[in-house]
């Protein structure tokens, strides 16, 4: 981002960025603009996701969901936000006033800071940190601070339970999360999100998820840890409606309550973006191989359309993953607190360690076998390419076919038929 700003100062303002006193003003203004833009984007995405989740959840429960406010109900989230703003924002008198008010902003900043690093397309992200993923894991810890604060400050036993559960859950799931993220990092060899994406190819069998079987397992387990980090079912213990009334949000009302929901639905986008970056090849466009991309960059003639297409591909992957997260929420029940801890420490951590070991071994082995061609997407001709294609056929294509066959069998079994009316 900084070079673009420097180029801008040189060409437009004809000043030398290093020397000119006013350059920090330009940087500050740019930062403000991009920061504001990304936060508004996060809020809009959270709002639309809330409408979309309620529609998908309704459809899965044989209902319809909100379709009265705006065309097909799309402005429902504006109506909700307005209602929350107008509603009385009650701060319980015997609660810890200051902490009670600050807690939602911790959660909001934790959510907004992740956008600094998240890619949106080829070269499209706020910054290109070389410690991108490490930064991401660090920043999501802020959300936990916010939840624990709200749990403690509300002076309500339910909120306390919710806060303590959040502390136990999110903190303990970061360890397997970090470990499982190591698998794609080992494959890609860098922490920078864009580098990780570059190390994967456009076609599915070049993605890290289908390159190796442990990458495949790591994908599912990493998905589970991200569910736990985002407090989504089956790990939504901190905000368990049926046990803890509303968990850490019990005493909140008005727009303060809205912040939590904004952060939770916004987190959906962040989770999906991270997973699709690490495992599903981010913004890699299928028919553009690494060589052609390198050629364009060398010649500096990257077609503008490529930016658009790469962003489109990235957004579709993220939306598909968000639907999977929503779909999981409206199917699986919630696990108990001690089961949640035993899943983390008895299943995710040992298996995570095993996967990292295997990933490291493959790197060393493939480096010995294929030399420096071991990195990056392998063309189909080479043995590695064939290996990837075979594994993709087994682990990717066959289950998808089985899946759709089972869907239509389920519909036939209850005597229903496919009917997309009654929206």
């Amino acid at each position: 981002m900084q070079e673009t700003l420097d180029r801008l100062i040189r060409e437009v303002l004809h000043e030398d960025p290093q020397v000119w006193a006013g350059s920090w003003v330009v940087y500050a203004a740019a930062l403000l603009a991009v920061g504001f833009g990304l936060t508004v984007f996060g809020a809009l995405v959270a709002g639309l996701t809330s409408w979309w989740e309620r529609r998908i959840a309704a459809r899965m429960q044989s209902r319809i969901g909100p379709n009265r406010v705006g065309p097909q109900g799309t402005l429902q989230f504006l109506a909700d936000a307005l209602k929350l703003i107008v509603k009385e924002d009650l701060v319980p008198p015997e609660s810890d006033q200051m902490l009670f008010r600050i807690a939602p902003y911790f959660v909001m900043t934790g959510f907004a800071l992740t956008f600094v690093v998240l890619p949106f397309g080829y070269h499209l992200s706020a910054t290109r940190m070389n410690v991108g993923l490490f930064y991401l894991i660090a920043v999501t810890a802020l959300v936990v601070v916010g939840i624990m604060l709200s749990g403690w400050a509300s002076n309500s036993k339910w909120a306390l339970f919710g806060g303590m559960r959040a502390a136990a859950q999110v903190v303990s799931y970061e360890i397997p999360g970090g470990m499982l993220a190591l698998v794609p990092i080992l494959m890609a060899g860098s922490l920078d999100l864009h580098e990780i994406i570059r190390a994967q190819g456009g076609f599915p069998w070049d993605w890290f998820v289908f390159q190796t079987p442990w990458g495949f397992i790591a994908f599912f387990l990493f998905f589970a840890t991200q569910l736990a980090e985002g407090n989504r079912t089956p790990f939504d213990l901190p905000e368990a409606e049926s046990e803890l009334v509303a968990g850490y949000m019990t005493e909140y009302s008005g727009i303060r309550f809205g912040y939590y929901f904004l952060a939770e639905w916004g987190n959906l986008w962040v989770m999906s973006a991270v997973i699709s970056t690490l495992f599903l090849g981010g913004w890699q466009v299928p028919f553009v191989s690494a060589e052609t991309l390198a050629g364009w960059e060398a010649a500096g003639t990257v077609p503008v359309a490529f930016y658009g297409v790469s962003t489109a591909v990235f957004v579709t992957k993220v939306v598909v993953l968000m639907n999977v997260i929503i779909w999981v929420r409206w199917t699986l029940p919630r696990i108990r607190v001690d089961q949640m801890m035993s899943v983390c420490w008895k299943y995710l951590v040992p298996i995570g360690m095993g996967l990292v070991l295997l990933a490291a071994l493959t790197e060393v082995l493939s480096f010995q076998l294929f030399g420096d061609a071991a990195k990056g997407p392998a063309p189909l001709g080479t043995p590695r390419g064939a290996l990837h294609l075979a594994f993709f056929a087994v682990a990717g294509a066959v289950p998808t076919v089985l899946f759709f066959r089972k869907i239509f069998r389920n519909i036939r079994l209850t005597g229903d038929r496919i009917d997309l009316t009654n929206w």
Partner: protein
Amino acid sequence: MALDQIFITRKFGPNAEQEMILNMGPQHPSTHGVLNFIVHADGEVMEKAVPEVGYLHRSLEKIGEMVSYAGFMPYSDRVDYLAAMFANEGWALAVEKLLGLEVPPRGQYLRAISCELNRIASHLIALGSTAMDIGAVTPFPYALRERESINDLIEALCGARLTYNYHRIGGVAYDVPPDWTPLCRAWLDHFEKVLDEFDRLISTNEIFLKRLAGLAVIPAAMAIDYGLSGPNLRASGVDFDLRKAHPYGAYPDFQFKAPIGRAYAGLSRGGKVGDCYDRYYCRVLECRESATIVRQALDKLPDGDFINPKAPKKAKPPAGETQSRVESVRGEMAYYVVSDGSERAYRLRVRTGSFTAMGIIEEVSKGLMIADLVALIASLDVVAPEIDR
């Protein structure tokens, strides 16, 4: 799992003063009505949960002494509004016993059909809310959707969807509308398939099983001692069904077998006879059982009048007392009626299944976690109106 054992068997002796007293209710998302549990907890693990009832006490028994025999029928709906047909039938049986009145066979069959449909509807709510209390929200709308079909069927039969007031002293109020039977049969076939899908979605779900298997096991002797009845008793392995032990109405003509608890969750998952999953799964099997009963009743529906023509307009039974026992959804519902010859009952007592089920919660909830208390309440299927009357 060793962790669970350590976690649950903590002692609460010396550090009792750090105990947290938590008021779970009376307005709480999963206490199934207006019930309150004073939970003595140490962190997530509860020392005990003392139930506190009476928030929905409308003193139906006092009203029974002020209203005529026929006038109490709509009040009997409110004894357990999820199983109003059984309350109607219990009250009608008691008064008929006092009057020595015979119910014509068609009336008895219509009572059996309406009761068993109502049993399915009430069980569907129990299954759906158990799944929702464990956190799976989707099974609840599926259960409600099937219940809507039953509500429509019963609404066509007697005009109301929840508080039916369908039975009368000496029979039932209306006959079956002409096009009702084929609709009912069509729904029964559809229901069998949907129940299989419900099982595939939630009953065999591993997380659901792990949450309920081996939880709050009630052995048979303890169940009998605490007076449990209905699915809660049968889930503990006691093979007692009032419709079989003391047949009334049209039940002798049907072949059915109330399901017994057999550690359905599977021994590998720690499932035992009489645990929460058994109580849940016994209700799923009972839904199937009731569906077969309704189908048999529809096949053998006799002709003739549906209410005894000699039923008195103003019932004035001779002095005396009786107790009629009905196998309601939540166990044995018994009406103990004392009459003194006037047109109003001298004393009316309703013994209900949820009342004794609440009595056992304090004993069984020792050492459970708060999330388990929610699962225990859902598995016992207690409902506030039946407890407080």
